[in-house]
């Protein structure tokens, strides 16, 4: 534990808020279990990534400004998504590169926003959170967590300390699941073909569950698994770490 406060704010993301609330509750539980005081700023909504990635930077900028207002006074913000974290810590700066006062706010806040597993590894210094899950799992690297935030070992180390859990790496773990935001519906067949490639890799491991850091990847993978009639669960890392 570094010298930061033990108080954290949750940014659960719009997707977790609306579609996967269990992930947010699991994340809050893990953080509280490590002794953090957790708050949930109620005015939070979205990071703006859907607009940004679809080519609407003006709309994304409006949403980003709202995010800055909501979390400005937070000491640390923890996010259950590599992709949304990357939007905030890497791409907000692109949105405000011609707006110096906002850019200063962005740069200051970006220092305090953490993807969940990165926070556990780099700030909380936690390896073993006391979790137990008797299952064989495989891990899917979300593209933005891996390539934009460089997060690869932290989730695996956390998984290695979960009692009863066996991690079987898929080949390739780092290839995209094909979600890509509006790409998944603009190029539905292509996105679906990429998802099927991914689930083939998952099936080859013989794992009973897929773990990831990103709810959007999990939604894509779960949707394809379910369509293929495969009985393999999808779990966010927070759900695994909250298991007892």
């Amino acid at each position, binding site marked *: 534990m570094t010298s930061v406060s033990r108080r954290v704010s949750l940014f659960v993301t*719009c997707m*977790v*808020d*609306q*579609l*996967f*609330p*269990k992930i*947010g*509750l699991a994340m*809050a539980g893990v953080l509280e279990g490590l002794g953090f005081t957790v708050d949930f700023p*109620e*005015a*939070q*909504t*979205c990071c*703006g990534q*859907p*607009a940004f*990635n679809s*080519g*609407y*930077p*003006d*709309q*994304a900028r*409006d*949403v980003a400004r709202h995010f800055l207002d909501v979390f400005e006074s937070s000491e640390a913000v923890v996010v259950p998504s590599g992709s949304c974290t990357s939007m905030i810590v890497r791409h907000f700066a692109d949105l405000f590169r011609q707006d110096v006062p906002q850019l200063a706010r962005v740069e200051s806040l970006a220092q305090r926003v953490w993807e969940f597993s990165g926070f556990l590894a780099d700030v909380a210094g936690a390896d073993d959170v006391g979790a137990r899950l008797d299952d064989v799992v495989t891990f899917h690297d979300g*593209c*933005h967590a891996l*390539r*934009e935030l460089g997060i690869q070992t932290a989730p695996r180390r956390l998984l290695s300390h979960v009692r009863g859990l066996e991690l079987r790496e898929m080949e390739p773990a*780092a*290839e*995209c699941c*094909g*979600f*890509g*935001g*509006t*790409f*998944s*519906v*603009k*190029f*539905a*067949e*292509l*996105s*679906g073909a*990429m*998802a099927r*490639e991914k689930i083939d890799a998952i099936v080859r491991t013989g794992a009973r569950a897929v773990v990831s850091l990103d709810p959007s990847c999990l*939604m*894509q993978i*779960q*949707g*394809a698994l*379910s*369509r293929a009639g495969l009985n393999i669960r999808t779990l966010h890392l927070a759900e695994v770490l909250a298991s007892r």
Partner: protein
Amino acid sequence: MPGEKPGVFDRKIREALSDARLQQAIYTATGRLKESRLNVVSSGVLPDYQELRTQANRLKQHAIDNLDFYLEQFQRNVEARGGRVVFCQNGVAVADFVLALAKERGARLIVKSKSMTTEEIDLNERLEHHGLESVETDLGEYILQLAHERPYHIVAPALHKTRYDVADILSERLHVPRETVIEKQTAIARGVLRQKFLAADIGISGANFIVADSGAIVLVENEGNARLTTSAPKIHIAIAGIEKVIPRAQDLATFLKLLARSATGQLLSVYTSFLSGPRRPGEIDGPDEFYVLLLDNGRTRLLADREKRQTLYCIRCGACLNACPVYRKIGGHSFPWVYSGPIGAILTPQFREVPQEPSLPFASSLCGACAEVCPVKIDIPKILLELRSDAHRHDPPKSQNRWEKLAFRAFAWLMRHPRAYEMAGRMAGSLAAADDAAWISRVPALLNIGPLRAWLSQRDLPPPPPRSFRQLWRQR
């Protein structure tokens, strides 16, 4: 946008996805190239790989930022050695130059080594239209020329062809017995091409690099055909995009280390030729005449944009194609122009004045695998995002995109009004009061269109939970 009226791009994607044999061929070939690359750039084998990338990026940035200076320096140095440099605005200018020269010298037969730049301007077609014979001498390119197809991949043009396909092409076009052994196929092509080399009047090559301080072009190849192309005929014409310039010969130490590794996983290609001018007195081989045609064809337009200008750093290694999960699914011929894959998705809309396929920059999940392998560190996802934004600015007012634009305006408003956002969420959640899989049938027909229908065409969707996170949080 794709969706309601499937255009050519959508149709080609669909065809590629439904061709199981093709899917297998692309996956195997790109997989092999991907793995070979990984083996030679790993930190155990090449500890300074990341530094080399940074260095290559800086050198390219410097060269592109000072393009006028280096091109003039190159021209002076070539002409001091008796060669000639010609600036060509487009493909017509290149073809006109070659045709005029051929007429003056009475030339009829041209041999060509592999060059994406000449593909870009349809040079063979332009020359053949005027009665010249122009023969591709790279084996893959030769096979495709016989098959009347375009390159499928920047460095492996016939990547989609199996040896059985090649057997069919050779026997049909050359009237030889069908031969499926690769070495024997090579021998057949070699037999034909040797005669062409000996008889050719002009050799046309591309250039992997043009070196300003030496007035030289550098050619990188594995088959030796570029050497023959540039030394057997009496006239050598090299055709290169203006962005191929690098300042100094010593910079090749950086670029050559990266190019072959990124392209094919070789430490160095089999032949690296450094050509600077016509044969000089006392030399035993080389052409009598040496020309370098420097092609613009849309490139200078990119210089105006500080961010997107980095597109011009590309050294055409093809690594981004092999790494791209989209290319590996849809292949090279689905793309609207000769450049395919991630680099094609950013080159095409920028080089061409009239966008051929407005949805091209959207055909990416933004996974970033391309940027990770790019030896000159082009931030391809970032440029795709800029191109997406540009595409919306140029939408005609009545395009289908106006609905999308409205939707994103509504989205941005909702996300700045937390109460309205929560209310909208509750309304959506009320459609799925029970936790069952049949919830989707309760979605009013009006909502069950567009994006939702597209999603469900491929995947299931989990029912929205009865309560949102914020509702559950309040109850804690």
